[in-house]
Structure formats: C-alpha cells, structure tokens
C-alpha cells in the first residue's frame, strides 16, 4: 500500500466528549500506515446549528477548513465524525454551483477550490487499508464478543453526497468487526437516528429514540454496541442512565467506538485506546471473554 497523507479534521467533540474516539483513531491510523496531519488551527464546522440557521453561514465556516487544507499537499481530508463529514461534503457538493461558490468565497474572504477528496476515516480504512489488512493486524481477535453495529443516520446519508457504502444497509462496520473475530448480530436499527443534538433541548425525544436502540440491541442478545459517531456514542453511553430512568429500563450496555475494538484486537491497550473513558464500563465484559484473550485485557 502506498502511504497516504491526509489532512485530519478532528471535530470539536474529539477534544471533549469523544476524546477516546480521536485518540484511538489516531493510534489506529498510525498502525495502518496513514499519515494524519491536523488541519492547522481548524475551526468548528458549525455542526447542525449552523446549517439549521443558514446554509451560507454553514458553508463559509466549513470552507475556512477546506481552504487551509488546500495548502497542505495531502491526498484528501478525513474526519472520524459523521456530522462534520456531512457538513464538509455537503458544502463541497453545493459549491459545485458557481454562484454559491462565489458567495462563500465572499463571506470567507479568501479563495477556496473545494476540490480535495473528503472521506470518513471509516471509508479510507476500508478502501485504502482493506479488510484483509485489518484482519492481519488482529493478533488478539475478540472471539466470543457479540455486538450490534450502529452506524447512526448520516454516515452514509444522503447517498448522492456521501457516496460510500449502502445508505439503508451499510456493511463497512459489520465487515471490519467480523474480520477481528467479533460476532456481529443482524441489527435492523443500524441506521436509525439516536435523536442527535436534541439530547439537551428535548430529552424526551432522545430517551425514546436512543432507548429504542438500546432495547433492540439487548433483545438481539448483544453484549455491546459499536458506533462510529460521537453523538450516537454520547447519547447511548453518557445518557444511558438518563434513558434508563426515563424508560424504566435497566441497560448496562457498553458502547464502543469501532476504532477502540480494532486497537484492542491488535493487542494494544492504554491511554490512547481510552476504554476507561466509556461511562458504562466495558471491563467486566472484556475480562469475561475467552481466557486466552481476556487476561491481557482485564
């Protein structure tokens, strides 16, 4: 494999609520031979609030990051966060219209081409490294662990903008997790919405939607949920106690980032993997796995 150089966009949550996603993603990419260079002095993409307030504002906030990355001599821009990804790619898509491109440049105050490839870390993992390579690195496969893969709603949507995997039945996570020895259960809710940023403003909505995901995962017989989205993970993990209280449920389901499990299966432990950052502790689950692999992890 040729070593790829990517401009890395961590997203704001990577410095806060999803710091273990950021650190395990960086570790994973390093192991698999990707060179990540942070977009220097990147700014927030505005997330949902910006596009819900004005598309020009949203695109202009994104475009500053695109413009900085264009001076970096890289093969593309990658981000672990689906919400950042959707904003980056939607902006690029809309800037194909010359009038909008001109408006964005005017608000941004500088020239931006908006032509670098933009991908999720998950996409470059599958397309550049490949499932076989991930399987090869997996020296301590997580045999015995049963999970449901939870992609969240926007990793692959809308399909004509995101252009990766299937928007209704994505398989990238399924295939990666299977390759590292995990039993992946069929999961009908794999692309359902968790309630996203309504957690703060309308907790009732998140209790219902994320509660449904937790209920279905437990009913499927999963030991844990695996995510690729900081907001999904936060709703399912940090809010799990809130959801239990609202719904009268008693879930204790660990919610991993897929990058944590890839590193775990590669025999890596420690601060960068950040298992201790999860609110629902995964340690008793991991130590209950086969003694061969469990000892090292308990």
């Amino acid at each position: 494999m040729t070593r790829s150089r990517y401009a890395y966009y961590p997203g704001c949550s990577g410095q806060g609520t999803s710091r273990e996603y950021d650190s395990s993603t960086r570790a994973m990419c390093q192991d698999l031979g990707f060179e990540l260079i942070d977009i220097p002095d990147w700014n927030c993409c505005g997330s949902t609030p910006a596009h819900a307030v004005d598309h020009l504002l949203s695109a202009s906030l994104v475009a500053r990051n695109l413009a900085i990355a264009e001076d970096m001599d890289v093969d593309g821009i990658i981000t672990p966060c689906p919400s950042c990804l959707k904003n980056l790619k939607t902006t690029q898509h809309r800037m194909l219209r010359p009038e909008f491109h001109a408006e964005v440049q005017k608000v941004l105050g500088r020239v931006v081409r908006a032509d670098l490839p933009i991908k999720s870390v998950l996409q470059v993992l599958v397309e550049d490294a490949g499932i076989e390579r991930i399987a090869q690195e997996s020296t301590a496969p997580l045999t015995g662990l049963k999970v449901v893969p939870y992609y969240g709603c926007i990793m692959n949507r809308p399909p004509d903008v995101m252009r990766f995997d299937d928007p209704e039945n994505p398989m990238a996570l399924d295939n990666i997790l299977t390759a590292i020895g995990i039993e992946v259960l069929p999961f009908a809710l794999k692309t359902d919405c968790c309630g996203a940023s309504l957690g703060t403003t309308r907790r009732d909505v998140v209790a219902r939607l994320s509660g449904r995901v937790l209920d279905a995962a437990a009913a499927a017989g999963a030991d844990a949920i695996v995510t690729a989205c900081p907001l999904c993970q936060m709703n399912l993990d940090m809010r799990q106690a809130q959801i239990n209280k609202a719904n009268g449920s008693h879930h204790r389901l660990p919610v991993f980032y897929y990058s944590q499990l890839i590193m775990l299966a590669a025999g890596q432990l420690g601060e960068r993997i950040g298992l201790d950052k999860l609110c629902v502790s995964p340690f008793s689950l991991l130590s209950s796995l086969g003694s061969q692999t469990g000892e090292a992890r308990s």
Partner: protein
Amino acid sequence: MSATIQTKSYDAAFVSAVRRESEQDLALCYQCGNCTAGCPVSFAYDFPVNQIMYLVQTGRKMEALSSHAIWLCASCETCTTRCPNDIDVARVMDVLRHMARQEGLVAEHSIHAFWDSFLSSVEKYGRVFELGLMASYIGKTGRVLTDADLAPVALRKGKLSFKPHDICGVAEVRDIFKRYREHRS
C-alpha cells in the same frame, strides 16, 4: 400531538421562496408518505413531514412556519434518502426553519436558544466551548437543571474542559460571521 390543516389562501411568494432557497421542486411531491414512514421524530411532530411538504405545496406559509416539526427535525436525512422523486426533504425542512427564524416564528424556544448559544460559542472562540455553551443556553432558557446530572460524569471522565478551545484564527472566524451578517442584511 395532532393538528388539522386549515384551508388558507395560497401564498405564491412563499412557495417560490422555498423553491429558490432549497433548490427543490415540491411540485414533484405526490404525497406517497415515504418521508413520514421513515421519520424517527414524527411521534413528536404536530404535522408529519409529508404534511409539511403539503403545506408548502399549497402555499400555507403561516402554518408551515409556525409548526413545531420544522424545529424538531433531527436532520437524519432518512426522508431525503427515501424520496422516490429525489426531493431533498431535509433541506426543505432546513430552509423552512431559516424562514421561520427570519419571520420571528419560533415554535420550539429551547432548540432556537441552543442553536444560538452554540453559534455564539463558535463565533467567540472558533470552536465550541461546552461549558460556555451550556451557561449561555441556561441563561436564555432558565432551564438550570439541564444535564446537571451529566456534568459530574463528564468531568470525571475528563470530557469537560473549563477552558475554551480558542484558536489563533478566531478573528477570521468572527469576520466570517460579520461578513455573513452584512451579506444577509
């Protein structure tokens, strides 16, 4: 929640504004209901999303812009993904909330306040500062106990910072907001 659609006069300027801003032709919507069937937040809406599309088709501006639904849409893109006529429904929902905000019609005050607080944080620091965002949101809404139960957990896990994540180019970000406002005024 439920509501009935009243017969009102057709606001042609509204229909063409939605069409222009969203770049979507709602005449293509034949009310199949696929958007509503897949909408995860429908249970909390006053009008299901296909009826919001119908309000736009029939030019009922005030009913569309006064709805709770347009604020509650989680932007999950399921409707857009499943529309058989390739209408970007989620983009129409976005455009309707832009218009509602301009008209001062805010059916969901807490969501409006959260978005404003979020963007103020971005304008001030260049990146989101969670504690500042929550303080601002509580100040706007008076909801003092918002996620108070999560703060100790987030702190213990090292996921909440007491310092803003400010960037060197914060002046550039503030200029983006300034030029955006000038452009829109």
